[in-house]
């Protein structure tokens, strides 16, 4: 229906032949795609200067294939490792990874940690919906304690990973967390993440009414958004709260924003030094 596309100003950033999306009605993925497109638009970035890499799962589909840029849809969990090669090859381009919590923090957890440590200039938008959505709603490393999933039918007895806090500690230049109920803040954070030189992570708490909500008494998308709003705590306020008080809360805002030597710059600097040292520069 072309008239619907024409009413959405961000459609110019989408691969029309790939639409409509495969996302379920009420999925937070659409919000993330919209926020990302708006961030690109507001920064006036040419999509030709973007390479978007993603892994496997619903959230991996958000930008790949739907976003109109060079897109690399990779193997499960490995998006950041692929993106590392792309960034070294194209240090002047913006390299963005958009994928889910299962993909980036579970099977791909090692790459996430090491990319943050390396501080390579890649922006990661991690869509955290607490669940393995596409493969049928199994437990994830982000599933809340006590929640029900298809593989924790009685209750989840594992503790969820605090992704943003972990990556902030690992050495990222920029880390922020928002929910899909904080769209404007989310757009601002994506813009900052894209501008910061170094590894940046934007964690988006996102609703999966179909696989997560339905099994945890929130089958309507709006119920999940209300749950996010009710339980969100700004990072400044959270600093003065105890661990018990923060149990089950979503800490939102910027966790880290700092300057550290960036990997591709350091790599090129090193090459320059080596060339100088061995007298290899053209005279």
């Amino acid at each position, binding site marked *: 229906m072309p008239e619907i596309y024409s009413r959405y100003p961000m459609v110019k950033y989408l691969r029309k032949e790939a639409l409509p999306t495969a996302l379920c009605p009420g999925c937070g993925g659409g919000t993330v795609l919209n926020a990302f497109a708006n961030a690109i638009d507001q920064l006036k970035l040419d999509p*030709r200067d973007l390479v978007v890499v993603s892994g496997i799962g619903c959230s991996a589909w958000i930008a790949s*294939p739907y976003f109109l840029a060079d897109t690399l849809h*990779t193997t499960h969990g*490995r998006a950041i490792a692929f993106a*590392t090669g792309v960034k070294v090859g194209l240090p002047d381009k913006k390299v963005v990874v958009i994928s889910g919590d299962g993909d980036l923090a579970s099977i791909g957890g090692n790459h996430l*940690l090491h990319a943050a440590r390396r501080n390579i200039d890649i922006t990661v938008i991690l869509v955290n919906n607490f669940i393995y959505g596409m493969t049928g709603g199994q437990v994830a490393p982000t599933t809340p304690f006590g929640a029900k999933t298809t593989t924790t039918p009685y209750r989840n007895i594992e503790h969820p990973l605090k992704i943003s806090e972990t990556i902030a500690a690992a050495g990222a230049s920029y880390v922020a967390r928002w929910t899909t109920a904080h769209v404007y803040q989310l757009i601002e954070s994506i813009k900052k993440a894209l501008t910061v030189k170094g590894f940046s992570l934007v964690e988006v708490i996102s609703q999966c009414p179909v696989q997560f909500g339905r099994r945890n008494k929130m089958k309507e998308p709006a119920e999940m958004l209300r749950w996010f709003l009710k339980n969100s705590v700004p990072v400044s306020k959270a600093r003065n709260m105890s661990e018990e008080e923060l149990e089950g809360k979503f800490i939102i805002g910027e966790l880290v924003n700092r300057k550290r030597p960036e990997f591709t710059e350091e790599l090129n600097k090193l*090459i320059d030094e080596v060339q100088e040292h061995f007298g290899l520069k053209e005279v």
Partner: protein
Amino acid sequence: MIIRGDEPEQVRLLRKLYKPGNYFMQGNEAVAYGALFAGCRFYAGYPITPSSEIAETMARELPKLHGYYLQMEDEIASIAAMIGASWTGFKVMTATAGPGFSLMQENLGYAVMTETPLVLVDVQRSGPSTGQATKGAQGDFFQARWGTHGDHPIVALSPTSGQDAFWETIRAFNIAERLRTPVVVLFDGILAHTRELVKIPDVDDVEITYRKLPANEEEARLPFGDPHGDGVPPMPLFGHGYFTHVTGSTHKENGLRDVYTPEVHDRLVRRIHRKIEKNREVYERYEEHFTDDAEILVVSWGVTARPALGAVLRAREEGIKAGLFVPKTVHPFPGERMRELGKRARAILVPEMNLGQMILEVERYVNDDVLLKGINKIGGVPLTVEEILREIRGVA
């Protein structure tokens, strides 16, 4: 659009850094220098015995050539980073050994499916599992062929000396670029650590190939099409405004995913097979010694081809009509030539440092009336001339 490594600046640097002449070096170093001469300017790897000197040499030499060395967090990340870098226009390589090769298999399949040129050197060591980590072996013959899942073709080469490793690594890059495919180099721990004479040529004496790039916008829009009829699509590189979509899922010629139409999968996977099958002249290579009148044919590969040649020479001195056939490209196996040679031979001996792997390929091409026998040794110690000669005498 350029493939990094072919600029005149690179030729000047190579010539300045590596004077032609004879050098005494490890097989692993020969692999690394071969890669540098072939235009490799991106290496991502994870150290593992007995391949580590390849990484060490690349880490030392690549920056001199404006190239990039990345030590990744594991083997999976290494091959992933290579694929990413290859799509930006680099010639890329990694080196590993058995366990690392196992970890790379999923992304090796991804490289086959997305038609990404790369060179993967597997310095074979003893297994299964950690096995004898520091010892050589020839046990990954089938891992190279069948390690990843699905129907897929693979090209695998196997050098027989340090000098050979230098040239075979260059050839691996040329095949990878020409056919837009991953190429495996099956090296081994013994040759990897043997120091011997390696002649470094002048840059001008090295013929190198670069991948086909799209000639126009139309070709760039079909990153998985077949505009030239050879099964090899031109490769639109990232960063040039083509909005290329690359996925390991079944995709149409324009790169977009379509996993539901049987014809799309059939067309894609058959073309990927066809481009390897139809371009045999690009990669097929073997060596022959005294095969014209050989009654006893020794078929061997990699490190074992050397004592095998010694044994054949000694047998000839004794008046035994022995010959040697050495497939240098082991996958796809040079079956046609094997069939011809098999018709003339009375007995075929297949020495290898495993419990019988390449012999199964040989068996497919020889008749039942030929005596076919493996000479197999495991434990990390290479076969000797004597051991192979004894078997030749036994069937003479």
